[in-house]
């Protein structure tokens, strides 16, 4: 975490992409990049809560989906995305506060916490999946059941619903949001709050014997994670499609895989993992068109094998491997 050079490089690359990519790339690439950025934000939220807080939240997608749905419902009802954005961040945050209170003040153990959070996401999946009929609306927004919400409005210029943002601008906004969240997490982890959070991850009992209310710290961290996941949901709503799939087991599995592959316990790792794995899946998809036999190769097969291999062989993930390699190179040959 004292690796300012690493953080500096990450932020610099992010800013470069923000400025340069839209000019260089086609629409299809921009939209894909926006989706990937939204997913990377989701990965970051889990990386914060799990990697630094030690909270095994297997249902981070619950907050992601809530953010997406809240944005869509609010934007449709208000006809204006300006207030939909804070609403879409507040909704999963409030939900995280309630769920977190139950989890941390009830002193539920690790495994149970994971199962409960997973179950919550699955409950939301089942509920949204069953909202197919026209009677399922919130205000004037149809929930659409398994088919998802039709016609989610794009972001518009603040307070001016007539001016819709272009895909280029939306990409910049979403990437900008990711950068802001990243910097915020960086700041948070270096603050007093962050120090205590890390200590809680190491030994909650000792932290409480030192006089801190560990439950409150975890709750706050959990809410922050939920809010960041909500931001990801907004990004996803503006580049892809709001449907129950946001809450599904498949999505939640992917987020966890991204964090593991990228590096649990780092800030950039989850972001890297999200991009790398999604790029890999995309590439496999194109491969299938080249070699027809490969089209039968199911993506789950590859994802699953990758996860197994990482856990067995590279349990710390990609980013720590990169940074430690860089560290060794920097110290020079012959040390």
């Amino acid at each position, binding site marked *: 975490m004292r690796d300012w050079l690493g953080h500096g490089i990450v932020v610099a690359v992010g800013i470069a992409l923000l400025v340069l990519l839209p000019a260089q790339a086609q629409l299809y690439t921009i939209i894909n990049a926006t989706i990937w950025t939204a997913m990377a934000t989701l990965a970051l939220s889990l990386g914060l809560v799990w990697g630094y807080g030690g909270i095994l939240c297997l249902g981070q997608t619950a907050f992601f989906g809530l953010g997406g749905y809240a944005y869509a419902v609010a934007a449709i009802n208000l006809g204006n995305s300006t207030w939909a954005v804070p609403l879409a961040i507040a909704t999963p945050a409030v939900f995280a506060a309630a769920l977190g209170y139950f989890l941390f003040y009830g002193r539920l153990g690790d495994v149970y916490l994971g199962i409960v959070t997973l179950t919550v996401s699955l409950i939301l999946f089942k509920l949204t999946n069953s909202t197919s009929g026209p009677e399922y609306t919130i205000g004037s927004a149809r929930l659409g059941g398994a088919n998802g919400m039709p016609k989610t409005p794009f972001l518009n210029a603040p307070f001016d619903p007539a001016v819709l943002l272009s895909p280029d601008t939306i990409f910049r906004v979403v990437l900008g949001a990711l950068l802001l969240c990243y910097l915020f997490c960086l700041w948070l982890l270096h603050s*007093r709050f962050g*120090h*205590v959070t*890390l*200590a809680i*991850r*190491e*030994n909650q*009992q*000792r*932290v*409480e*014997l*030192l*006089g*801190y*209310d560990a439950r409150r710290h975890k709750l706050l961290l959990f809410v922050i994670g939920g809010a960041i996941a909500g931001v990801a949901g907004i990004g996803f709503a503006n580049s892809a499609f709001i449907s129950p799939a946001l809450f599904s087991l498949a999505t939640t599995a992917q987020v966890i895989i991204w964090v593991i592959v990228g590096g649990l316990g780092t800030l950039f790792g989850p972001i890297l993992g999200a991009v790398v794995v999604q790029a890999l899946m995309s590439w496999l998809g194109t491969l299938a068109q080249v070699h027809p036999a490969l089209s039968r190769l199911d993506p789950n097969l590859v994802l699953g094998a990758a996860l197994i291999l990482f856990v067995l062989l590279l349990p710390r993930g990609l980013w720590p491997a990169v940074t430690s390699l860089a560290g060794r190179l920097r110290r020079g040959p012959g040390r």
Partner: protein
Amino acid sequence: MSGDAVLVVKDLSKHFGGVAALDGLAFTLRANELRCLIGPNGAGKSTFFKCLTGQLTPDAGSIRFAGREIAGSGTIAIARAGVGLKMQVPSVFDGLTVRDSLCVAGQRRLRGRALDGAIAEALARLDIGDLAQRLVGTLAHGQRQLVELAMVLMQEPALVLLDEPTAGMDETEIERVAALLHELAQAHALVVVEHDMRFVANIAGVVTVMHHGRLLAEGPADSVLADARVRDAYLGNSHADG
């Protein structure tokens, strides 16, 4: 060395199932007193400590610390009130450096330069300055004990409870701890649970002996250790089993 009573325990009882771990224990400690607590296994020493730190709620009795009743209060409240615990198996932050651990321990009360000063002082006092940047998880057992003690001291507790502080230490470290305890007693009240009788004889003023959850004997180290009842308790000659 005497002063007002900082800890007054009366009639403390705690049962687990049918077994009375604490059975009407009485215990008084003055400010700046260094007390050793000894007793055979099962005497109730750990249970007593857990009641003092708030990890357990006693079934009956009272614990008054610095004038306030703390029996049944939670761990966090009691820690804030000024009770520090150094556990038998070091309870530390393996993934943090020694310096960061001390930082967490002290930052609730101190900030900025005052915090840095307090950390430097704690490192010097326990002579672990050269370990400051090491990860606690990589340290030897005896060193981890010292780190834990340093963390507890950063809390500036009025009462320090130490559960077998010299377990796993070598001769030099034990001597360092003995000297440190004497020094600490000038500003804190201390209760030390120990099994190493030489260490007990070396450091203590008053020794309290527990047996079957209650007070068996109390007095200066040499007279207590020579007491026949105490010997019997350790050798299991009294009623029932230990």
